[in-house]
């Protein structure tokens, strides 16, 4: 059965869960004017990588990433998947920490961090301990419930914009390409799971590719709302510029005085989905390494414990920043090497098949 719609919805939701937090900060930090150039460049690069990745995967009907690599030996598998495993675990624990930090900054200022993190970890552990079908069905449900609310907040966020801040529209300054902060912005893209969900969940790669383009407006909004509300110089002063920009929305007839809380409570569910999908991928990798007797829920719980504990061990927001920097390198490695290697392997296997016939 073709489950493209579920995959598309989950793909959009997990991106919405992360794009409004670190992405605007890093883009505003590394670009002084004409932000759309750097946003679109980063997006196009990732779109191209999804294209390569799914193209390569499509050559191997009904196999997932590990099946493919294992055909070519264990060493190759380790080279490609070990960094991915490390990257995903680190990503999950750093983002969970950053998220908890945001929540405590915005509304739970007296709640200890571990409580917020524990809540996120437990729920995402529960989702990923069920099978992958359940995860994708949950995604659809979340989309139906929360997506309209997010859209509402995003429309309202235009309340205080001053369109003059759009100018200048063009800049010849491309120094952001070499800025390490720019690499951090790439965290707002994640598509590695696409290689793992087949064959249990089948999707049409063309649909995924075209529908992922609908994310562009959200990427632009995430950066442009703070820039248009505050102006470039002021927006660069905030840790979470988008959240602060949402703070300025004034709607007298709404029951919420601060719409930010409303917004965060919606995105936190998407974020839980993101964490559970990330851990699910790691569980799939670990399942192949461990003996068959180890049951999946134990792996899931162990991985979440690991994420939770390392999330607590992070000392402060500076360290979160530092870890994002480190992870940016791993991200670049994984997101360049894996899609291309799959593409090349697909090409080789097709040639082999051709010569065999």
């Amino acid at each position, binding site marked *: 059965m073709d489950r493209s719609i579920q995959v598309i919805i989950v793909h959009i939701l997990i991106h919405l869960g992360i794009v409004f937090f670190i992405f605007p900060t890093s883009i505003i930090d590394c670009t*002084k*004017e004409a932000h759309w150039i750097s946003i679109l460049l980063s997006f196009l690069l990732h779109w191209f990588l999804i294209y390569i990745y799914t193209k390569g995967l499509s050559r191997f009907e009904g196999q997932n990433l590990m099946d493919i690599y294992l055909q070519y030996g264990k060493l190759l598998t380790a080279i490609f998947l070990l960094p991915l495993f490390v990257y995903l675990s680190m990503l999950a624990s750093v983002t969970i920490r950053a998220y908890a930090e945001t929540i405590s*900054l*915005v509304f*739970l*200022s*007296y*709640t*200890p961090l571990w*409580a917020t993190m*524990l*809540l996120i970890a*437990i*729920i995402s552990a*529960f989702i990923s301990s069920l099978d992958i079908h359940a995860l994708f069905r949950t995604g659809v449900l979340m989309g139906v419930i929360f997506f309209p609310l997010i859209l509402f907040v995003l429309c309202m966020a235009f309340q205080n914009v*001053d369109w*003059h*801040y759009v*100018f*200048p*529209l063009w800049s010849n300054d491309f120094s952001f390409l070499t800025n390490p902060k720019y690499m951090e912005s790439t965290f707002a893209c994640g598509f590695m799971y696409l290689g793992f969900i087949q064959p249990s969940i089948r999707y049409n790669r063309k649909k995924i590719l075209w529908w992922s383009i609908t994310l562009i407006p959200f990427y632009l909004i995430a950066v442009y709302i703070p820039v248009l*509300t*505050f*102006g470039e*110089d*002021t927006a660069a*002063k905030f840790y979470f510029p988008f959240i*602060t920009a949402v*703070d*300025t*929305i*004034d709607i*007298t007839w709404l029951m919420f*005085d*601060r719409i930010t809380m409303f917004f965060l409570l919606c995105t936190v569910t998407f974020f839980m989905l993101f964490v559970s999908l990330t851990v699910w991928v790691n569980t799939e990798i670990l399942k192949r390494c461990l003996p068959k007797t180890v049951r999946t*829920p134990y792996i899931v719980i162990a991985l979440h414990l690991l994420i939770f504990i390392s999330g607590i061990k992070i000392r402060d927001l500076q360290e979160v920043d530092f870890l994002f920097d480190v992870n940016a390198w791993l991200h670049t490695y994984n997101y360049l090497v894996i899609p291309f290697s799959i593409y090349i392997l697909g090409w080789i296997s097709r040639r082999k098949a051709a010569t065999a016939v």
Partner: protein
Amino acid sequence: MKTRLLLLKMVLAICCLFILGGCWDNRDINHRSLPIVMGISRVDSMYKVFLMIPESGQDGTKSMLVTRTGQTITEIVDEISSNMESRVDLLHLKVIVFERKYAEEGLADSVSSFIRSREISAKALVAICDEDIGKFFDHLHKETETDQTVLYNFFEKNAGLSPTVAVSRIWEIFRSIHSYTRDIGIPLIRSGTSTIIENAGTAIIQHGRMVGQIPADETLLFNAFNERSAYGRIEVMNHASVIILDNSMKHHVTLKNGAPYIRSQIHLKVSILETRGHPSLDTIKDELESQLTERFRKMIKSMQQHEADILGVGQYFRNKIPREQLAHWRSEYFPRLRVDLVVKTTIQNEGNLKTDNINTRQ
């Protein structure tokens, strides 16, 4: 095995309930004091904070005025908190009033710390008190024994806001402090003789420092320029008085020999309220136009004198002047700015009476 796992999951799910309550250092609403108005002044690097806290008791709500002096604002709030039986929570603070003297020294530090701490909403309104702040609060406290939202309603669009009162919020002031091209006007208020509050015009704030002020009728143009509605404002001229029904603005900007030039067109729809004698419609239009143009010219002049661009004219030049140069907008470009205001008036109706002027209707 299966039932055991199910049991484990259920226990976990039930454990979640404990966290979901969010009962962490939770204080119920009856143990919180939620001030609506805060006043701040500074004398010899010591802050003095005034808090107006509504208190509900058996016989309705009463307001309480608490003051304290200290090194920092947070310290003072904390001390007030510890001296009261409930905790002071600034979450719902609606209006912050600064004393004029403090505003002249500079608000940058206070505003940054409000934005930083998040305890005070970034949407809180700001006003400057044009007299001794102690006197102002005593007056406010005496007059508003039962209604605590007087000051808030003064600025509230659906309550008592008039088009001659500027509205500024904490985040807007923060933005203006860090902006190249935009300063801000903060409403000036003082205690009135017959009304509780009196509008005293608008303070010109440059880089968070009050440098001058413009009178209330110029504030009307300031609001119109910022695309706020001037609806309901009554303009009185020699021969007639009119009420403004609608206003819109258009701007055309150019750089002439490196000097900025802006041609603004304000389009007013008015209705005639009173006439004195028999003025023609054209006379009324002309009078209105020359009155507004003159007023606008005066406002621009006093802004240029203080190098404070409270209209945000610099915003319109963002695509004309490169960013590095724009950093010097206030000092180099703005004083040389030439402004032409064209007032286009449409007299939408003349009330119930015909204005008997056949000559003017061609």
